[in-house]
């Protein structure tokens, strides 16, 4: 914290509030449009406040999007849990059990986090078809595997920050490798798990590219369904706005409740922290 606040700084609130308005404008439009009645909907009055609280738009958007919201949850939950668990084990081995070549394995895994998925897209689709894995399980599998680099990175950095003496002492007492993980590291890994779970939840929920390529229309997750709704001429913009809020709500809630951990995941993603 910077303690040396000097009195002349209050003018800074002017640009800060102006920027806050800029960041909030799209949310303002989403929310007020959602609450307008169908009779009030007009692009010319899109910035005006609603005359009352109507739920027409949300009801219509919900009817159209609820199956795909369900699909998103069905796919995101296993994807998040499994890739986080794998990341924790990998991080433990890479940070605390150096073996020959382990220093090469880490960057080898890390690179997978940055590749443009267009470069593996054709083989991925061929592989999924060949293996008979389709739809949501295939999508979940893609998120698990392409999530391994970031989850491994976060846990590896956390475990590397713990003193080696912790392990040595446990080894002296005869603890096994798995015992050390289970009884010493796992209980203090909760904050890292929160960071990784949030990160994986957010990125799998928000993903569009894998989803559009690996799923058909009955299994569309929310991003694909919303995009198709927005691209159709039949569904009007006000319903699209309401649908956007439904699509954004789960990750926004996680962000509002656990923002601190979200930030840590973000910094880890740049290989920092």
């Amino acid at each position: 914290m910077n303690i040396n606040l000097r009195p002349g700084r209050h003018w800074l609130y002017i640009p800060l509030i102006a920027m806050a308005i800029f960041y909030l404008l799209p949310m303002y439009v989403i929310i007020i449009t959602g609450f307008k009645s169908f009779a009030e909907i007009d692009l010319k009055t899109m910035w005006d406040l609603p005359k009352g609280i109507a739920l027409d738009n949300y009801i219509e958007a919900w009817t159209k999007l609820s199956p795909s919201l369900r699909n998103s949850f069905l796919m995101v939950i296993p994807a998040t849990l499994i890739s986080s668990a794998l990341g924790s084990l990998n991080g433990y081995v890479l940070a605390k059990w150096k073996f020959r070549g382990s220093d090469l394995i880490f960057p080898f895994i890390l690179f997978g986090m940055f590749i443009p998925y267009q470069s593996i897209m054709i083989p991925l689709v061929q592989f999924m078809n060949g293996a008979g894995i389709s739809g949501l399980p295939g999508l979940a599998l893609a998120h698990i595997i392409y999530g391994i680099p970031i989850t491994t990175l976060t846990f590896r950095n956390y475990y590397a920050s713990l003193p080696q003496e912790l392990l040595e002492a446990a080894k002296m007492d005869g603890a096994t490798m798995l015992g050390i993980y289970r009884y010493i590291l796992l209980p203090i890994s909760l904050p890292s798990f929160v960071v990784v779970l949030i990160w994986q939840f957010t990125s799998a929920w928000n993903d569009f590219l894998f989803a559009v390529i690996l799923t058909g229309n009955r299994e569309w997750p929310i991003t694909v369904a919303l995009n198709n709704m927005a691209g159709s001429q039949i569904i009007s913009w006000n319903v699209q706005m309401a649908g956007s809020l439904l699509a954004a709500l789960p990750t926004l809630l996680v962000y509002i409740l656990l923002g601190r951990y979200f930030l840590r995941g973000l910094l880890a993603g740049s290989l920092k922290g």
Partner: protein
Amino acid sequence: MSRDKDRFLNILLISPSILAVLIFVYVFIGWSVRVSLSKWKGLTADYTWNGINNYLELFKDPRFHVDIRNTVIFTGVFVFGSIILGFILAVMLDQGLKGEGFFRSLFLFPMAISYIVTGVVWRWLMNPAAGSRTSGFNLLFTNVGLDSLVNQWHTTPTWGIAAIALAAIWQMSGYTMALYLAGLRAIPLELKEAARIDGASEFQIYRRIMLPLLSPVTLSALIILGHMSLKVFDLIIAIAGKQLPLDVPAIYMWQVTFDGLFYGKGAAIGILLLISVAVLIIPYIRYTLKTEAQS
């Protein structure tokens, strides 16, 4: 005895992940390279050797030239905009004002939502319709008397992609702010104090002392944002769909492969994207791991 067992166990624990990454990243890249060197066009796989013809065709392809131009404009506007805005926000929030946490969360929240949501909303905010059908930002500008700012947004010829970059800046500038803020917090306060005692103005302190000290952060931001702009896809699709003037390599790859079934060419675009990302990312990973090993 138990040492050997441990050694065996730790390799056993990590090998499923290594195998998965090996196959889904490296084998698949090799496979894509092979497809890019083939004549595969159509639903059934065809690995007939085609040399580097798919690549040569791309370099002559006017659509690919549009893609490169758009990527350059997008990268320039997005990376520069996010870095400048993120730095300014971080410096303002570093002054110890009340409500800092509130503003920080607010500037960062767009990161939690998807490009698709951002795109769907910005598509209506950047509505280019004129006259009585004016809406979105253009309507807002007219209402507050800033008519000169009214523009065609993403439908502007040649520069339309810059409007998409504006939406991307809205989404990602909080991220650069967070990077810079973390960087600023890591600089010892005494440095600032010493400069103040020497009579440096606040502006000079940030310009002459903080900014150079933050150059590793700027480098990270450049590389992370730069590689994101090479991959931009969802945001353009959600704002404009697949339109030729706003085409980028990721969209071209998708269309040529899954709509046009020209797998050889699609794979070639994917590999070119991979090479451009790798040029940025591999030195970055090496540099980061090296600095980490030194500290």
